């Protein structure tokens, strides 16, 4: 219902803390944008500036083309879901949802209708009379969503709404929020530092670090083509493995090992011949299957297993190749255990290379 434009937005706290630097982003109507990044990177700050809860130090914020910088939040027509839910503890679920509408002097039966509708979508009709304290975490979460929905606000902001829930519930609420967004189609900005949430929910991801935007893109783009080493390491679980080495003679050399790079990769790396780079490979791109080994016969290594974690149908193995600690995610069918030395293969087409100084992806840049 709204597009949002952030232009060169900066935020200083107490003149010294530069929490957000030159934030530029255009959000289209109905998008589901996820801000992701490590703790303290400025996600909440940015969100709160959009909501008007925090002053914008410099730059411009437009919603539907109107400059919003100086408008008080109560007039911005934005709904927000807080990490703590911030449900009014002294009001029933119904009153929590009705509060904003009452303040806007919405007619009683209209309020009632909207709440009933929202309650139905969220399956909380039975709890309307309860106080927040009498609800479980997931139910509270739904009420918080409900309170935002009934307002029919132009923009929906959510600041780590799931981080207070336990893992199982988090998974469930995640898909409920996705479905909800598909139904009501409000422009949504969602903040999290959980990359699983980020990956599964976003239409576009904004990855931040230290107040700077690192990359903007769809989850797939970001996963497959991380712009820099930070993004590469941040997205994906277990995290990408990094190995420092040198490009020489069409090979990547590290310690005593070395392997030949595929043609295209090597071509893209021409600028780095003879230079130090950081190679990255995702745990799931390391295989133990013989069949893969045969595909990439050049990139087979001995892998010494230190810990192996069985995760149902797959196993995560921690270990090392020639002193380089690596994590691999392999099929559980192969019964491996700590202490074993096995042969693994890298999927050479899925390698990433980063400049050691700037951390920028080398392949990406030249793409």
């Amino acid at each position, binding site marked *: 219902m709204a597009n949002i434009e952030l232009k060169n937005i900066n935020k200083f706290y107490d003149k010294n803390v530069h929490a957000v630097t030159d934030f530029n982003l255009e959000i289209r109507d109905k998008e589901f944008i996820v801000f992701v990044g490590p703790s303290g990177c400025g996600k909440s700050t940015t969100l709160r500036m959009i*909501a008007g809860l925090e002053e914008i130090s410099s730059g411009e914020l437009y919603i539907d083309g109107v400059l919003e910088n100086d408008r008080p939040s109560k007039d911005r027509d934005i709904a927000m879901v807080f990490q703590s839910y911030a449900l*009014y503890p002294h009001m029933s679920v119904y009153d929590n949802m009705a509060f904003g509408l009452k303040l806007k002097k919405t007619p009683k039966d209209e309020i009632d209708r909207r709440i009933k509708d929202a309650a139905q979508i969220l399956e909380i009709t039975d709890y309307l009379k309860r106080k927040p*304290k009498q609800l479980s975490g997931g139910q509270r979460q739904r009420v918080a969503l409900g309170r935002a929905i009934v307002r029919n606000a132009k923009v929906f902001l959510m600041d780590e709404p799931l981080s207070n829930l336990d893992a199982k519930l988090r998974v469930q609420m995640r898909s409920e929020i996705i479905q909800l967004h598909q139904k009501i189609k409000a422009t949504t900005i969602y903040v999290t530092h959980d990359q699983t949430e980020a990956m599964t929910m976003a239409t576009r991801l904004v990855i931040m670090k230290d107040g700077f935007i690192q990359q903007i893109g769809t989850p797939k783009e970001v996963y497959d083509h991380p712009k820099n080493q930070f993004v590469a390491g941040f997205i994906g679980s277990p995290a990408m493995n990094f190995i420092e080495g040198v490009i020489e003679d069409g090979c990547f050399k590290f310690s005593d090992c070395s392997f030949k790079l595929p043609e295209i990769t090597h071509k893209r790396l021409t600028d780095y011949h003879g230079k130090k780079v950081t190679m990255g490979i995702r745990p799931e791109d390391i295989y133990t299957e013989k069949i893969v080994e045969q595909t990439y016969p050049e990139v087979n290594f001995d892998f010494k297993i230190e810990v192996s974690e069985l995760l149902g149908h797959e196993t995560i193995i921690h270990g090392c190749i020639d002193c380089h600690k690596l994590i691999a995610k392999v099929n559980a069918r192969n019964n491996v255990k700590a202490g074993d030395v096995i042969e693994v293969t890298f999927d050479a087409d899925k390698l990433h290379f980063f400049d050691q100084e700037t951390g920028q992806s080398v392949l990406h840049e030249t793409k």
Partner: protein
Amino acid sequence: MKNKKFVRIVLIPVFIHMIVFIIMPIVAGLGMSFLDYNPLRSINEFIGFSNFERLLADDNFKIALVNTLVFVIVTVCINIILSLVLAQLINMFKSNKTRSLFRMIFFLPCVAPLVASSVVWGKSIFPTVNGLANMILNALGLSSVNWIGDPSMVMISIIIFTIWADIGYNVILFTAGLDGIPKDYYEAAELDGANGFQKFRYITVPLLGRTFAFVTLMTLISHFQMFAQFSVMILRNGPANSGLVLTSYIYKTAFETKDMGYASAISMVLFIIILGITMVQQKANKVDWEY
């Protein structure tokens, strides 16, 4: 778990102490109220409910009762409202220095002994001719007020003094209570479109419930028991008994009229009133949520 020994070691002495120093005196007081009691005499006559019957016919008791209730209710109400407003104003400052400066100033009167402040106010602030209060009024072009000599003013003056002397505790309790309300609620309300007053009305006031219940309870209890200002500040019982309250009536009956049995009867009534009112207050202030 099975470790009840420790509980016993701690609680038994405590309850023995309570029985000796609190419960026994209450029971003894109750007993005395059925006697024509004078501790100097070795035999005191049992007179049944006569002391209580006397109460019903005693105009001074009625006056004292009404005065006490008026004093407590008015003072507590003003005290609570004012301290809440002051606390809210103080909390509008971000700087901790400003906050604690004001909190400290408002608390200063609580630090002084009530007798001392009563002397100061009674002897140098309220007097019609020499008092600071009238000097200020005159300087502002207003006419003098007979603060503690006019029967219709006595209670008002005492209330002003009591609020001055006692509000500091509550200001601090409320500022603390306000600090304890998570900021989220205000932000959520702000996004819901609430203005400053609406936030105060719909968020602050109800969320302060717990503090509020505690503060009113403590204030009620302590105000029923106030004594020093009535005995120090006003002449005898004030004009036309306008300053006579139950506590001073009890003291007077026990130590001036030396009618201890009757004094005990009055103090039993006071006890029951306090107990009753606090129970009602507790019920009314039940808080069924928490953050």
